[in-house]
């Protein structure tokens, strides 16, 4: 049995995206910047893609910039808004403690440039409070950045509400929607955002391509200098096959979101229910306000990397926020932000489902995961200490 349950890391390419990629290579091989027929045909195809992506997101075509993925979009949006704000003497940025590193590390860089960065707490349920964001916004604030859905614990943030506050206060608002697009409704107007970054390979598109929505009139500086592609904001010949494949994937992924969400959340709920029966474990993130495919647990007394390796041996591909899987000493900043202490955060497991997963997958994982957890606990001195009273259970 092989179960792929790491769809938040990446997804399998959709056949429709693969076909579109190959077709684009064949039919639209010209450089969109070329004047000749082949080039102009490619340019028209690029425009069609831009229009389609824009329509799906509720944007205008000239508000969509194709990028290399989520990280680039996040970087470009944040740096643009920050540097624009700095020119007017505004150097405060408000964000959250659970952002992706593409956001956090960009903010760290800006901190070194003299910006003040406030990271809002998210509480045990892993959701930031809009009123906390509101309190932090002042006349020096040049940007608010809040992710739409968290990549580790799947919690959905009150982006609409925060966006509304930002719009009223005339503060630029960026949202990292990498985990959300294709998995829940995403409309830039409803979200009141000025910048929104997405990545194709999270919804069955290819790697290395994404899009950045930039509301008309918002500042945008280019990270890559050169030709005038993407209206002068991103130099380099467009990867049209990748853009077209992303567009095809996005069209398919968003065709019937309610049906998709209903199916996947049913699988998620069964898996959460089954894994909750494991003693001394805890679900990470709010039970209800989470992505339809996200299951994240901490198991006391074991370490996540060994859990992943043994699950892999059983044919289950999963992920963990333990330090050992990241090569750093600290476990995931997201798990620490929701109050999981180090000892417990090391024993985390993330399973992320999509429509490729089946009830059989869930049944198989529900059988194997408790066995592997029990096996590892059987050789853990921490588990022995917990059971023999030398150490207090946390979960």
């Amino acid at each position: 049995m092989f179960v792929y349950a790491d769809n938040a890391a990446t997804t399998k390419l959709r056949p429709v995206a693969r076909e579109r990629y190959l077709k684009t290579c064949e039919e639209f091989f010209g450089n969109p910047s070329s004047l000749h027929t082949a080039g102009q045909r490619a340019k028209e195809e690029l425009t069609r893609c831009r229009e389609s992506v824009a329509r799906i997101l509720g944007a205008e075509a000239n508000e969509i910039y194709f990028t290399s993925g989520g990280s680039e979009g996040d970087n470009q949006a944040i740096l643009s808004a920050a540097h624009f704000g700095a020119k007017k003497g505004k150097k405060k940025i408000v964000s959250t403690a659970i952002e992706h590193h593409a956001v956090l590390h960009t903010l760290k860089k800006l901190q070194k440039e003299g910006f003040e960065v406030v990271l809002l707490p998210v509480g045990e349920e892993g959701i930031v409070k809009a009123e906390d964001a509101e309190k932090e916004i002042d006349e020096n604030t040049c940007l608010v950045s809040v992710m739409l859905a968290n990549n580790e614990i799947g919690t959905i943030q009150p982006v609409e509400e925060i966006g509304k506050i930002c719009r009223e206060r005339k503060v630029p608002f960026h949202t990292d929607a990498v985990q959300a697009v294709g998995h829940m409704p995403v409309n830039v107007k409803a979200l009141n955002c000025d910048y929104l970054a997405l990545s194709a390979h999270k919804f069955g598109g290819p790697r290395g391509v994404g899009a950045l929505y930039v509301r008309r009139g918002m500042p945008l500086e280019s990270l890559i200098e050169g030709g005038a592609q993407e209206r002068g904001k991103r130099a380099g010949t467009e990867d049209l096959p990748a853009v077209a494949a992303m567009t095809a994937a996005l069209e398919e992924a968003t065709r019937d979101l309610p049906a998709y969400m209903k199916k996947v959340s049913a699988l998620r709920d069964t898996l959460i229910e089954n894994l909750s029966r494991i003693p001394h474990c805890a679900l990470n993130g709010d039970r209800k306000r989470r992505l339809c495919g996200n299951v994240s647990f901490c198991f006391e007394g074991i370490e996540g990397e060994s859990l992943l390796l043994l699950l892999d041996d059983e044919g289950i591909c999963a992920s963990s926020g333990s330090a050992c899987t990241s090569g750093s000493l600290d476990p995931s900043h997201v798990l620490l932000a929701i109050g999981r202490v180090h000892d417990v955060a090391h024993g985390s497991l993330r399973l992320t489902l999509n429509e490729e997963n089946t009830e059989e997958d869930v049944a198989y994982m529900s059988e194997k995961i408790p066995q592997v957890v029990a096996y590892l606990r059987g050789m853990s001195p921490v588990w022995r200490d917990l059971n023999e009273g030398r150490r207090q259970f946390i979960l």
Partner: protein
Amino acid sequence: MSLYSEKVMDHFKHPRNVGVIENADGVGEVGNAKCGDIMKIYLKIDDGIISDVKFETFGCGSAIASSSMATELIKGKPLSDALTLTNKAVAEALDGLPAYKMHCSVLAEEAIKAAILDYYKKNHIAYDESLFRETSCAHCEDRPE
């Protein structure tokens, strides 16, 4: 996964000497749950020979494999041999560990030394203190609570 050698995976998936020795002659525990690795070694010692050894480990794949390999390397050996076991020898016996996992082999060496020290202390046996250096797991102990 190709992160680890076949030998690491073998010792991780089929660890040797897992368990507890009741009334062990020496017990050593090193590491810290906060940094994600704890190793506990139990020794049975007869006439200066390690007649049995068991381990319990909370940690990643390489921590479990290092414990398993280290116990194999000292089982049936005189204490004097066990005291000279280095983390490098453990890592080499496993056909190498990724650089950032070398501390797992260090923990194995230290856990064995801690168990032997426990045996010496319990039995009031004189020992060469220079053989028992400070543990090198400083990065764990430095962490704020």
